[in-house]
């Protein structure tokens, strides 16, 4: 309990720093720390799957994205040039937000203990899914439709990001150019780290059916490895019009849809799996989904096409 109190104090302190810091860059650094601390909190809440996602995606990839943005936008007008809301507005907002916090806190204290839960149901049916990690069972079987729609959400976010390209660079390479320095330290690190990271990513994905892990966590690690390699200039993103790239992007959701629709024929319903083959079918979905999510995440961080295609 003493550990928990310390952790909560730290989380709140870092969160306040993130909101209050004068420099945007400092605030982003605070946010990354906030994410890592939250990952610890998730471990304390007996949710290791979420802890991994929080650390990899919520803190790591989001943090990287925001860090990149804050340095890119660093040359903008200082905070002084921006109209600050008046003191009365700030006071009103502070009162409102305090009320929200107080209300939520009261609700937390009123919360039923034990809370209503679906854990027994999830466990009672888990044999039919062929999985033994209940979180993966929820993601891939009980609520597979959410996961399917979510892969589409990611894809659409990427289409949205790409839509922000300038017309003349459409068909070009995403993101800024990173010069390769064959003797640079980053190159050295990338050469060592990336193969290990890819291995870890695949392991995390693979172990997801029986232990904490899964396609989102694995895909995030894979995406991060690609980002490191591209920062070191070892790889570059392909032009956004490449057919194989587009195929890699939709392979996951498309196969998810296809197997879902096949469920009409083989299991009597959309996204239903016949019990004997459930595990195999889920794996057949997960492999391309991991690939597609990893590609999408990496390209979301890279940003819209910025460099005209080489002729």
């Amino acid at each position, binding site marked *: 309990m003493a550990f928990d109190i310390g952790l909560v104090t730290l989380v709140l302190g870092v969160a306040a720093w993130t909101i209050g810091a004068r420099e945007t860059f400092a605030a982003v650094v605070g946010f990354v720390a906030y994410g890592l601390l939250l990952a610890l909190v998730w471990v304390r809440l007996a949710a290791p799957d979420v802890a991994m996602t929080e650390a990899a995606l919520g803190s790591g990839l989001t943090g990287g994205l925001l860090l990149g943005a804050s340095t890119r936008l660093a040359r903008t007008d200082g905070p002084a040039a921006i109209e600050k809301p008046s003191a009365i507005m700030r006071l009103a907002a502070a009162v409102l937000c305090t009320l929200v916090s107080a*209300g*939520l806190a*009261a*609700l937390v204290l*009123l*919360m*039923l203990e034990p*809370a*209503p*839960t*679906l854990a027994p*149901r*999830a466990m009672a*049916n888990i044999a039919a899914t062929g999985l033994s990690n209940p979180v993966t069972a929820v993601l891939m*079987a*009980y*609520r*597979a*439709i*959410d996961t399917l*729609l*979510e892969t*589409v*959400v990611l*894809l*659409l*976010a990427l*289409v*949205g990001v*790409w*839509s*922000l*390209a*300038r*017309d003349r660079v*459409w*068909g070009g390479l995403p993101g800024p150019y990173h010069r390769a320095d064959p003797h640079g330290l980053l190159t050295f690190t990338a050469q060592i780290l990336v193969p290990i990271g890819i291995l870890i990513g695949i392991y995390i994905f693979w172990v997801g059916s029986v232990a904490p892990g899964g396609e989102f966590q694995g895909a995030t690690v894979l995406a991060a490895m690609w980002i490191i390699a591209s920062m070191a200039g070892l790889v570059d993103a392909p032009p956004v*019009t490449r*057919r194989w790239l*587009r*195929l890699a*992007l*939709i392979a996951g*959701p*498309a196969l998810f*849809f296809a197997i*879902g*629709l096949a*469920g*009409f024929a083989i*299991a*009597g*319903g*959309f*996204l*239903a*799996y016949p019990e004997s083959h459930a595990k195999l079918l889920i794996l057949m979905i997960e492999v391309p989904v991991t690939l597609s999510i990893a590609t999408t995440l990496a390209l979301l961080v890279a940003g819209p096409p910025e460099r005209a295609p080489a002729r």
Partner: protein
Amino acid sequence: MPGSATAGGFLLVLAIVLPVAGAMLSLVLGGRYAERIALTVMPTGVVVAVAIGAIVWRTHNVLQYFVGKWDPPLGVAFRADGLSATMIVTAALLICGIGLFARAQFSLPRCVEERAPLVFWILLLTVWGALNAVFIGCDLFNLYVALELLTFAAVPLVSLDGRAETLTAALRYLLFALFGSILYLLGAVLLYGAYGTLDMVLLSGRIRAEPAAWAAISLMTSGLLAKAALYPLHLWLPPAHAGAPSPASAVLSGLVVKAPFFLVVRLWFDVMPRLPEHAVAQVLGGLGAAAIIFGSLVALRQVRLKLLIAYSTVAQIGYLFLMFPLAVKPETGHPWSTAAWTGGVLQAISHAFAKAAMFMVAGLIAEALGHDRIAGLAGVSRVLPITVFAFALGGLSLMGLPPSGGFVAKAMLLTAAVAAGQWWWAVVVLTGGLLAGGYVFLVLVRALADASEPLNLLSTISPGRQAVVAVLALAAVLLGFVPLRPFELLQIGRPDIAIGGLR
């Protein structure tokens, strides 16, 4: 068991899968095929939508589907009642009209892929799939994902031309939408914590008047209001809807803002029918009234036609929320058998058709003249007579003059207000109608005037596109011939039937 999946439930799956699969196929095959794919998906989607409507109408029962054969609370259900079916058919027809209209603007070059057309068709199809997911969604978290999909498809439509002002508008829109979705999600979390399910039907049986439920409904409603742009959370709407290319504006104003409104209706009347108090409903109605007056007044002062139409959307959204104070806990019968409830829903549908048509009119005029300044419209009725006529037809709905869907909707709200003794809403409806008349005539008077010098047309507008606009505007007029009372289709599957055999 009445709560099982129904025959024909697979149609609900198709309503989501078809457009989304079309969007993914467009992405793979590239810009040259995007338009063709969209135009193939559209008639198929209309068939699915009409089939859903027909089954709900004929069987007089809800269409229900449990995804993966997992029934709630563990699984996710899709469910189409009369209201959903109506919205699905509306969306299908409107998307088709908009697609046909957009062909000229986003037609494809034969050799290389271009950004704007590719993105437009993918986003249009995805908006459609996401709307269907919202209309049939029965699980609060599934609906959260659907709402986010809708947002991510709608926001880039605003900034398709990449100008600084539309980028600003898109960013502001996104920030408002994210603010809304986080509040919505917070509410959903509280409901799960209290009742152990996110399924709307199960929730409606379990929910009680207690702090957690109260907090959840307030948070979710506030979040959805930010997404629906109800005054005073409307700031993002006019620049976004006016800045988008006109087919996109038509989708955004006609359909996208109706999705969060639809969910507020679901929450208030299906999930927690016994919860809302008159006082809270009065607040919602008050915001609606403020939107009507404020939006109309600002619309009157606009210089540009598209901004005028966008501010008119702010006002017309206000009418939707007048149904809450008038339909919550009526003295006799159910909320959904009141004239106000039907009037509100009808307002959503007729405004969708009318406003889509009017945004397209503005687009055609801007294409022909090279600008959309209201002061420079003189003589345009000579060159684009059908287009200006379509604007006038759409205007009937906004003003609430017969014959039009808007007239029936507003007449029902009016009678409901008088019958409930809440005369102040009647005053608002009438004032809003007068102000709408003001800004519609402001445009028509200019457009019908003779030009002092011959108009210099930048491009000729094909009769086909004018016809599409006219048909949509005519649809808004034809809605005026529905009977002036709560009608049956919208009643199908309301909770009084469903709760009767609660699973």
